[in-house]
């Protein structure tokens, strides 16, 4: 069976990290785009369909938490996995409260990461399905009112 690739956006201020990480994910068969700041991340999301954003927490300018907040405000359905070099759970925890799917410590275990990516993609698909159903229901109700 052919696996459907996941659309991933990698956001980290470390250019080398973004490059290597993206290459590796692409080699795994995913579709990957990489950017180096929160603002760029939001710009890309305006025009591109992304399943999962992998988001570094500590970045200059707009940090990961701020970016996450903005992502969830604009496109709540986009899933976010946080990356932290800090190892402390406190910011990660804040991120989870804001709706992040999960978090990983840097350097991350790749197998762990792939599992989380799959989980995030699944959750997004379910959400989309639910929205579709809800829409079609309300559509039916509306059309029912009409006639």
């Amino acid at each position, binding site marked *: 069976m052919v696996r459907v690739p996941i659309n991933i956006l990698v956001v980290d201020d470390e250019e080398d*990290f973004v490059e290597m990480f993206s290459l*590796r994910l692409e080699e795994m068969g995913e579709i990957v785009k990489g950017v180096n700041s929160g603002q760029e991340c939001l710009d890309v999301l305006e025009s591109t369909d992304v399943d999962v954003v992998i988001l570094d927490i500590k970045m200059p300018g707009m940090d990961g938490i701020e970016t996450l907040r903005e992502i969830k405000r604009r496109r709540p359905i986009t899933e976010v996995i946080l990356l932290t070099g800090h190892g*402390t*759970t406190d910011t*990660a925890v804040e991120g989870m409260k804001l709706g992040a799917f999960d978090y990983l410590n840097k350097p991350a275990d790749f197998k762990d990461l792939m599992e989380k990516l799959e989980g995030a993609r699944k959750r997004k698909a379910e959400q989309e399905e639910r929205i579709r159903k809800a829409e079609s229901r309300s559509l039916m109700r509306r059309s029912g009112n009409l006639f």
Partner: protein
Amino acid sequence: MSTEKAVKVLLVDDEDAFRQALAKRLERRRIEVFQAADGKSALEALKAFPVNVAVMDVKMPGMDGLETMACIKRDFPDTEVILLTGHAAVEDGIAGIRAGAFDYLQKPVETENLLNKIHQAYDKSRHQHDLAKEAELREALEKQMATAERLASLGTLAAGVAHEINNPLAIISEAAGYLQLLLKKDECREMPFHDRFEKAIEKIEKSVKRARRTTMQLLGFAGQPDAVYREIELDDLVEEVILLAAGQASAAGVTVAKEKNPSSVTLWTDPHRLRQVLINLVSNGIAACGRGGRVSLSFDSSNDWATIQVKDTGHGIPKENLERIFEPFFTTKPPGKGTGLGLFVSLDIVKRLGGDMQVKSKVGKGTIFQVSVPRLSKTCPGVCNDIDWRDKARELERRDNHGTGAH
């Protein structure tokens, strides 16, 4: 004022009649007098009845006054000595002052004069005593502050360093992982030195994991502002620890088990951190045991405290190491095998939880670490009401633990 309390004086002279007469005169002036007939018994007397002032004849058979004074200055530095010299022996007196006497008086002694000197010497002795105490206290305080400061700056430094290292580590790790994927491609199968490349990459990955362990331990020490407190059953925690240590234990051929089974002990604490402590202790215990060794966990509670013991049948800790095992980076393990941060971090955590840790060890027999923590550590902020969130936190903890604690 020095006169409020009876001033105690040791009077040392080999001439009985002279000594007793002088003692009487002093006692009449409300001085409490102890007597000794020679240097040796003077030292004995001081041991039993320490005094602030000794009045002592210089010319004595056996140990003379100067010799005796040297011993007094050495063993009882707070005691001031007034020497009594023969009437034409000014040199004796001067030599005495050089050697540390408070003053000297020529015989025959004028009572009023001696009394004055005694009170002066007494005041000096008291003052010096206070000064010494003060200096001692100041030194202890300074030492404490230096330690606290060092730990605080070490903590900030550790967090910074760990973060700065984790980022390049992540790049190394992804690059190595990418290369590994490339090597697996069909086009690369026939590449020269294929296996050697693979082997080298494996080494890189292994080393990344090792460095990661160090930074994670460091971070465990450094930044943990938002601990998650909740109620736990110690029995559950111990079971979890045993489960998490199972891999290391079976690889080493060591049994890890719960010892007694006390009735339930509940704690309000930070389970993630406390678990990290226990895992560190159990992991040390396993490492100290040979095949067939045993690490046992037991716990108990009394009133507001819970104690957890981790006992092993390992090689023990030699005396000279016992003081050092809590120092950061102190390890007796070969390079790459231990960070030397386990106990340092553990003690730090336990202290933060308001508790303490003790160790007892016998070389060749084994070691016992005992952790005591208050059953009610600092209460947590409102976040715990949010059920959804609590589940997530638990999940985070479980995972963290796999990532950082168990090794």
